[in-house]
């Protein structure tokens, strides 16, 4: 697999990670975390780890984000940092 896509997606991943932890709203964090998960899935797929990509897709998109939103729903969106 050509390295260009890999590198670009990796940088996207890092961007997503930084934004997810620095944004001042937990729901946004949840959503960005979903984006992070998408990127990760792409990254696994690029590196040929199909099963891992599948898992990450199903977990990251289907379950993890929903849990996150549910938790934020039941707690609060406010955060100081």
């Amino acid at each position: 697999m050509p390295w260009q896509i890999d590198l670009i997606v990796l940088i996207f991943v890092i961007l997503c990670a930084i934004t997810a932890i620095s944004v001042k709203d937990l729901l946004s964090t949840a959503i960005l975390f979903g984006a992070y998960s998408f990127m990760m899935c792409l990254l696994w797929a690029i590196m040929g780890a199909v099963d891992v990509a599948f898992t990450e897709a199903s977990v990251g998109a289907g379950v993890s984000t929903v849990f996150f939103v549910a938790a934020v729903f039941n707690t609060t969106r406010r955060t100081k940092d």
Partner: protein
Amino acid sequence: MTDFFIGIMTKYNYWLYIILMMIGLYAMIVKNNLIKKIVGMNIFQTAIILFYISIGYKTNATIPIIKNAHGDHGTGAHKLIIHAADYINPLPHVLMLTAIVVSVATFGVALALSVKIYQRYQTLEEDEIRMRLREK
């Protein structure tokens, strides 16, 4: 100097995984909000998964599912000639499947805990919780 750059070029995956991991670790240590910490934790774990998957990758190899062996349950074993260099190392994938599962489980538990904490303290900020505890 050129060696250094060649080192980065050929191993940028490892460099970036370290950066990602450090982002997660930083969030876990510094962030005050519990959910932020949980996110940091997840990023941290994902970085390690990235590391493992990077170990397994081989250039010019295909995904670890044998081609042309559309297997059937119970009809004769194909004598295929398989070159190991053609397929990506499956072992890290296996390990990381487990690690992902573990991280999801931990994630769920951490969220459940934070919900429980919120029920009691009505806040997710660590310093506020500490303040409440001191008041008691």
